[in-house]
Every structure is written in structure tokens, then in C-alpha cells.
């Protein structure tokens, strides 16, 4: 690990100033950044601790919630409003990492966490376009079970690993950021970028900008949940995960939100499938057909081709459960 200086920001303005021009790297709980520093993937020379910024969880005037970027993952998952009104969000967080890591991890850090691709993490032994642009991608011909089946590019097939972000995507959350050029709000579905030719550019955030809060609109689903699929029962990233919310009235789908984890370089909001399903019948045939369309452009690899069927089955099971049509 390289020598590094450490400062603690006491206000948003101070944090912006300390991090201006990308001089200081923001530090949340450190559960991802510090690991990557130990591995030499990240080599910041200065850290700006932003865990002192707002960690409040408050109701907004429009009836949604505003979550401070420094809120710990476990605090968000335990929050009564979130558990009762946004169960998919609480469940997605609890499905991730371990209790200890969730106690440290912040909402800002979770949004910004980097891929778990084995080749991305191996500075000494592997090529990776995301870590070292232009060097090549060793994952494509290597171990890619955890990699993307959709939204990837020849340059990079890595997935975004977050569970929380998948629920945020289905909930249409908005990310509030602040920087030297002022404040702005970015919809979560636009927040993470697809790799294209530049996998190293991971989010819409500019150097020196920071996440201040996450805004969640008022609940729009009668029922919602999160289901994560993995070999190990706990403490493993998703092979496939589904965040879904549903309102069914008289057998017709009135409102629906679906996002996938583990299948794409970003939390994958299934807009196509939602459009196909909205207003239609809540039957498993409809669910399956809609998703087949959504994944028609999938580009699986030998190591992860099983995810197409897995995603389909998981989504279908989740929607069936939510629509109560199994009863």
C-alpha cells in the first residue's frame, strides 16, 4: 500500500474543496476502497473522509425519502420507513456482504463501489481495460461466471456488484451530487455508465463531485421484494438478482418496476419488459415472454450462459410471488 494522507471533511463545501480536481479521494466506510488500495488497484495519495456528512434518513415533501450519503448500509436496512414502505430496498441491502461490512459501508460508497472482476483486482497478473485502459481484457477468455450477459462491450464484461443499487434502480431513485460547479440530480438509471470503449469511466460523476444524498420517490408498488441467487447462502455476490415491485388490479398489471443485478455492467432496469407487461395480465406466460424480449440482445459467454435462463426463471418466480397468482 502506498503512503497516503488523510483528512476529515466537516461540511459538504469543505469536502468539495478538499477533493477539488480529483486531488483527494473520497472515503466512506473504506470497505471497498481500502481493499483496492491494499491490492494496488487504487493508488490515491490523499483521502477525504466523508462519513461525517449527513447520514440522516428523512421524509421528503412529496412523500418520498431522502437518505444522506453517509448513512450506513445497516442503518438504511433497519429503518422502519424503509422496511415498511420499500421492502425491496431493505432486503437488497441485507442480502449483501456481511453484517460487519454493512455496518461500515455507506450509501455513497455502495453506489460507487467497483467491480469484483478477478482480473480487475489482480494488478500484477492480469490485463484489464477498466483498471488500465487499453491493456486488454483477460476476463473474456477466463473466469467470467460473475460477468455480464447484457450491456457489456468487447472492452469490458464486468458487472456492477451492488445489491442496493438494483433496488434503487427499480425504485427510480435519484442521486444528488454536489461539486465546484454546483449541485445536480442524476437518475440512478443514468448514474452508472455502460463500458463501451471506456470502461474506466464508471459513473456520471465528475472528478471532484460527491454524492450528497439519495432521493427515493413515494412508493408506487403494492408489493415489492428482492431475490438474490448465489451458490453460497450468504456473503457472496449475486449470480443473478431481481428487484421487483408490482401493483395488480383485477388481474391486470397496473404498475411494475424490475431491475436485475449480476447480469450487466450496471443495475439493469428492465424497461422493455416493464413496458410489455404494463396493462397486461399478470400470468407467468406473460412474465416469461416479456423477459425473453428484454434479454434478446444478450451476449453470453461460456462461463455465464446459464444466467439467461436463471434470470428468466428468477424473475418469473418473483413476479408470480408478488402477483399472488400462485395462490
Amino acid at each position, binding site marked *: 500500500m502506498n503512503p497516503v494522507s488523510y483528512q476529515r471533511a466537516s461540511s459538504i463545501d469543505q469536502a468539495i474543496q478538499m477533493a477539488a480536481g480529483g486531488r483527494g479521494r473520497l472515503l466512506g466506510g473504506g470497505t471497498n476502497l481500502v481493499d483496492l488500495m491494499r491490492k494496488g488497484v487504487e493508488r490515491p495519495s490523499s483521502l477525504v473522509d466523508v462519513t461525517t456528512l449527513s447520514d440522516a434518513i428523512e421524509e421528503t415533501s412529496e412523500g418520498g425519502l431522502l437518505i444522506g450519503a453517509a448513512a450506513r448500509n445497516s442503518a438504511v436496512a433497519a429503518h422502519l420507513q424503509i422496511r415498511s414502505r420499500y421492502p425491496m430496498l431493505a432486503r437488497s441491502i441485507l442480502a449483501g456482504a456481511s453484517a460487519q461490512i454493512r455496518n461500515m459501508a455507506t450509501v455513497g460508497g455502495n453506489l460507487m463501489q467497483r467491480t469484483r472482476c478477478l482480473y480487475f483486482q489482480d494488478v500484477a497478473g492480469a490485463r484489464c481495460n477498466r483498471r488500465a485502459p487499453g491493456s486488454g481484457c483477460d476476463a473474456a477468455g477466463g473466469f467470467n461466471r460473475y460477468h455480464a450477459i447484457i450491456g457489456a462491450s468487447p472492452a469490458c464484461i464486468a458487472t456492477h456488484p451492488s445489491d442496493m443499487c438494483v433496488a434503487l434502480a427499480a425504485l427510480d431513485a435519484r442521486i444528488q451530487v454536489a461539486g465546484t460547479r454546483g449541485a445536480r440530480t442524476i437518475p440512478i438509471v443514468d448514474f452508472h455508465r455502460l463500458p463501451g470503449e471506456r470502461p474506466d469511466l464508471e459513473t456520471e460523476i465528475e472528478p471532484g463531485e460527491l454524492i450528497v444524498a439519495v432521493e427515493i420517490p413515494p412508493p408506487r408498488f403494492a408489493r415489492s421484494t428482492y431475490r438474490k441467487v448465489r451458490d453460497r447462502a450468504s456473503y457472496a455476490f449475486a449470480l443473478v438478482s431481481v428487484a421487483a415491485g408490482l401493483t395488480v388490479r383485477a388481474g391486470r398489471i397496473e404498475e411494475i418496476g424490475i431491475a436485475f443485478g449480476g447480469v450487466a455492467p450496471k443495475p439493469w432496469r428492465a424497461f422493455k419488459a416493464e413496458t410489455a407487461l404494463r396493462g397486461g395480465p399478470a400470468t407467468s406466460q406473460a412474465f416469461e415472454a416479456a423477459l425473453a424480449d428484454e434479454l434478446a440482445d444478450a451476449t453470453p459467454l461460456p462461463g455465464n450462459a446459464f444466467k439467461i435462463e436463471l434470470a428468466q426463471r*428468477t424473475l418469473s418466480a418473483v413476479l408470480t410471488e408478488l402477483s399472488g397468482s400462485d395462490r
Partner: protein
Amino acid sequence: MSRMQNAVVESVKTVLGWVPAQWLPGGTPDPLILRRAAIGRQASRLDGPEKVRGQARFAAEVAMDRLCYASLVHSTVTLGRITRLDTANAEAAPGVILVMTHRNMPRIGTLALIGLTDLSAVGNSSLPIMQEPAVRYNGQVVAAVVAETQEEADHAASLIEIDYAVDTAKTRFDDAKDKARTPASILIEKNHVSVGNAERELGRAPHRVDNIYRTPGHNHNAIELHGVTVAWQGGSLVVHDATQMIAPSANALAKLFGLKKEQVRVLSPFVGGGFGGKGLWDHQVVAVAAARLVDRPVRLMLSRDSVYRMIGGRSPTEQRVAIGADADGQFTALVHTGYSIMPPYGACPEQYTLGTRALYRSKSFEIVQRHVDLDVVPNTFMRAPGEAIGTFAVECAIDELAHAIGIDPIELRRRNEPDRHPISDAPFSQRALTQAYADGAKRFGWERRLAEPGARHDGEWRIGMGCASGSFPYARMPGANVRITLRRDGSATVSCSAQEMGMGTATVQVQHAADRLGLPVEAITFEMGDSALPAGPMAGGSSQTVSVAGAIMAATEKLTGELLRLAGNDSPIAGLRAGDVRLVDGGIAGINDPSRRESYRSILARAARDEVTVSAAGSAPLEMLKFAMHSSSAIFCELRVSKVTGEVRVDRLLGSFDCGTILNPKTAASQFKGGMIMGLGLALTEETLFDERSGRIMNATLADYHIPSHLDVPEIDVMWTGIADPRSPLGARGIGEIGITGVAAAVANAVFNATGKRIRDLPVTLDKLL
């Protein structure tokens, strides 16, 4: 081992076949089998309170004055040569005391590989350690930095620049199979066993199965990372190590650094998990050399990444198992062949076929292992090397055959239960596997299993049950020494350089010594973990307990003689000989006439002695050669497989063991359960991701190498026959490794019962079940 050694072992076995059993160790059963007080009692581990309070000092925690810290640099290429080595930036970095590479590392020889002949031969690799620019595997140590703090050492290590000329390496298992070697022996057993014509019998058999099973590589993941704290004191060397082989390591280091045995002291009072991985590897040697160059004590604790790079794990295997059976299900052919990795500089043959020889009767056998040579960190022993994965292949095949014939898999096993060793014809010392099955099946509720696969459901879950046999050979190591000091106040100290890896070594030997010496457990101290004590055996092969016990038996015999001599002619026991007495209630008493007795206190007082000390070595373990001696088990598993996702969740696991006398139910249950949990990892999640393109391990972290998490571990039930082995000290056999054996097969068999899908490649991951 060579062909000649094969011949020697075979002829010793033949001779022993003619020698009456009474002449051998264990010829008459150990009297303590019937007469025990502390042994067999539930007792908590003596080291428990110290560990819970954080007071136990592990090797990388020992404090020393002027201590400095080392960090390692690993090769990032697989085969090649260092062509440029720039250490200037590292040398100039803050706090750096030394950068050591092949250029300035003291010149030393190579380690002798672990064998069973020379007790200082404990190397896991015979490659030179930082002696030359050549690189032989990806992850090999190429440089070490010593600095004032760990952080400074780690940072400086990252500043070393190295260029390599790269050669084409052998990294592909399938490609290397063509050039596989067929060794003459596997450990001390002949490798190729051919009885009758198995292929022909197979061709004729009305029922047969013939399949290939694959198991991946595994890495060691003890909680405690490998670590040493090393100090040169004058010309002598003190090494605080995390090791399973204290005395042999001291000998090996002495040899390597040109010292006398007495000049090297290895201390290892506690080891935070060994499982075969805590042997002598490059890091101890590098730390010793670095400490000499900086003339200060050096601590080297490996990172988790370093453990993956430089400590070998379990070899991957490809195994063929074929079984032919007649109409009644009696085996006419048993074939077990396959491939595993063993580079010429490695020591571990991954003996996956050894267990197969003793499990079933068959008209014919064809058994042979082939070694694939790859440029990798040499694989090593890992909990139940061989048996853990060998039983996966064989016990799945049994289940497949039972299904094909249409009989219960336990019944099929019962029909093929051998009454003597199926290959050597040696008698079993004791074997009650059939009873273990019967007891286990009853407790588990095996009768509720539906033979038809996929017949039980609960919502989206398919439910299945499976079972499998586990097996592990008995071993007692030669050359185990102990010293016993008996004091006039009725207390005794037993000393032996034994190892405590958390299994309860001291606890159980205190129980044993108490009964052996006729004293209460509170009167006994067991000193261990230090090579300055009488040389104990290594902790490996599930053999430490009986090896130390055998030495304590021998020393007690000597002590008895010594006490009888001291008692002299004025004692109530005068005239009695060692064979006529027993040690009981703090003294010596006649066996036939217990009223003739005298207390230790009285004997020593009359002889004007404060204490009496004896040392002895255990007898040669000839019982191993005359008898077939194995621990065995029946493992039962019930699990669920999601129809939606293919996820496997284990609901119940039961192990029914036949391992001789259980010396302490509490520590034994922990060993069994720990082994079974490791078996769950083997079955469902563990896999070293070795990239055959680069020769590099890609998942060198616990985040990416998945051992079972708490949620993966169900309620585990263990039980045992408790039948004593008449041929072993205390009637005990090994229990440390048997727990992992059979588990992977029981899981895979239960998966088949749940889904109708036969998974022959470990781990059984969800994609294989979609």
C-alpha cells in the same frame, strides 16, 4: 518411494503376517481400554479460557526487542528467469533495512521432501529458495523486504521492479495428462494394484457403472495466517512458528543453515488451524535468512494472498471409477484410476485411491494413480488428502450402481462389506461400518427416503436424501518421544514437542496420562509446543494422539520399572514385576492382589527422591503393517434444491463414526463437525480458480474463494460406535480427518435423490442443476 522401498514394505508385511499378533504392539489390548476414568469423559479444552481471553500468543504475536518486519514479493510469471531486478527505490524507501533477493540471500541447500524415512525431511518443495534467477511457478517468492514497520515493508516491496524472460510453462491439466507418470508407490503403498482382470469382469457384469469424476484444486484457508517470528541468539536460532511439525522443522532448519540440532529451537504452542498446510515452506527459510542478514529479530506474517501463492493446496483430480456387479449386487470388478498433479519438486501424491482398497470386497480390482507434472506451487496435504476426494468418486459410483440395480445404497454396501482387507487379506483390527450405518440410518430417519429421484417437494424446493461412506487409515508415527516426571507430591508432568492446532492435544493427553499414571487430571501437566522438549511426532495423518499416547505408554512402562526398583525390598510391592502391577490411585498396586500397594509419595520418600524422570519412545508401529486399520463413517445428508434457481441448501447432516475409543466426546465432536463443514465446502462451493493461460490463481482471497458461511451450515449431528480397537493405544484411531471424507458424495447423492441429476464435477454449483 522407489520400487525397492515397495519391496521392503511388502516383505515386512509378509513376515509380519506369520508373526503371532501377541508379539506385536497392541498384541494384548491396552488395559486402559477397559479401565478408564478420565478418558472418554467430556472435558472442555484446557486452552479454551486463554484463547477466549486473547491471552494465547500465536507465532506472529510474540513480542521481541528490536523486532523488524518482512514482506514478500511473488513472481508474476510462471516459468522463466529474472532478467532485470531494480531494488533501488525499495532500498531508499522509508524504514527499509534490507532488500533480499537471490543476489544477496545467504547460500543454502534445498529442503529434503517430506517422506517417511528421515524425520528432518519435511519440505513441501525441493526447489531452491531465492538462490537463483530462475522462476518455477507463478507466485514463487523472488524478493523480501525487511523494514521497521509492516506497512513500510509492504510499501517498499511494491517498489521493487522485476523483468522476466518468460518460458513456455506447463499449466494445462488436460494437455499434461499425455505425459503423466505412473509412480511405483503412493506413500508407503504400492501404486498399481491389479487383482484378476477387472476390465474383463466389467464387460461381463450384468450391472455396471463407469464414469469420470472431477474435483477442482483447493487452497488452505486456516484462520491464522502462516507466520514466523525469528531471532538469532549468538549462533543459535529461535523460531516462533505456526507449524504442525515442530521437531522435524527444527531438524530441517538446522540442516539447511548448517547448525547443530541443539542450536535450533522451534516454538509453536498454539496453531490457529493447520489442516496439512502448516508445514515447512519458503517463508520460514526466508525469515531465518533475513534475520541473519539484518542481525535483528524478524517477523514474517503472510498475507492471505501470499498463502494462496506460495502454500500449496489440494491437487485437482480426474478420476475414473467403474464398478461391475453380479445379479445380487456383489462386486465383480472395482476400477479406480485417475490423474492428479504432482510436480517432481513436490511431496504430496494426493492418495485418492488408497481408501478404495479397503472399502469393498470385489472379485477383481484395477487401481492406479498417474501424476501430472505442471509448473505450479507444489500441492500438499490437505485434510484427508486423497480420501476426501477419492470417496467422492467411489461413493457416488456406489450410489449410481445401487440406483441402477434398484436396491438401497446401504444394502448394496452391506452386501459388499469385506471381512478381511480385500487386497492384502490382512485382518481388520476392528471394523463396524455396517453398525455405524445401521445406527446412523435409524437416527437420521433414512427409511423416510424415497428411492425414486425427484419425488419429494416443498413449494419450489425438491428434497433429497443421500448417504456415503467415509474412511481414513490409522497411523501411528514412529519416533514419538515423551518424558514423564513424577513428583513426590503426586503430581506429574508429561513433556513432548507436540502440536496444538486447536483440536485438544493437551486436553486429551492429560486425560490419558491421568488414567495411565493413576492420578487425577488436576495432577497432570502436559508440556508441549517446543522443540526443546522430547521430539514428538508431527501432527498429521490423524496420528498425533495415538503416536503420543504410544510414547506415554512406553514411558509409563519404564516409569513403573523405575518405581519398582526404588520401592526396593521393604515395600509391600517388593518382588512384583512390571507385568504384575498397575498404577492406580496415586501408587502401584498388584493386579492379582490389590492390597499389595504403595503410594508414589511413600516410594519416593523412602528413596529420598523428590521426583523421578523417565524418557521413552513409542514402540515401532508394526500393528499398522500386520492389521488393516481404518477409521470409517457413514454420512447422511438431507437437502433442498430450488426448482427455480438450482440453489442447493443443506438441511441436515449426520455423521455416524466408527473410530475406536472416543477419548473426549466434546473435542471429538468438534473434530467431526469441523471436518464435515469442510466437506460441505468441498461439495458445494470451494474451488481454486487456476487460470490455465497464465498459471495464476485468480481467487486468492476469502471474498472470492468460498468456504461455507454460517448460513450454509445446518444442524450437524454426530454419533459413534465407540468400539475400542484392540490393536491401538487406548483403543483409539484417528478422528481429525475422517469427518471431511464421504461428505461430498453424501451431498451429491442427495442432490441426485432430489433432482435426478448426477453431478460428477465438484463443486455442485447451481448452474449444473438448472
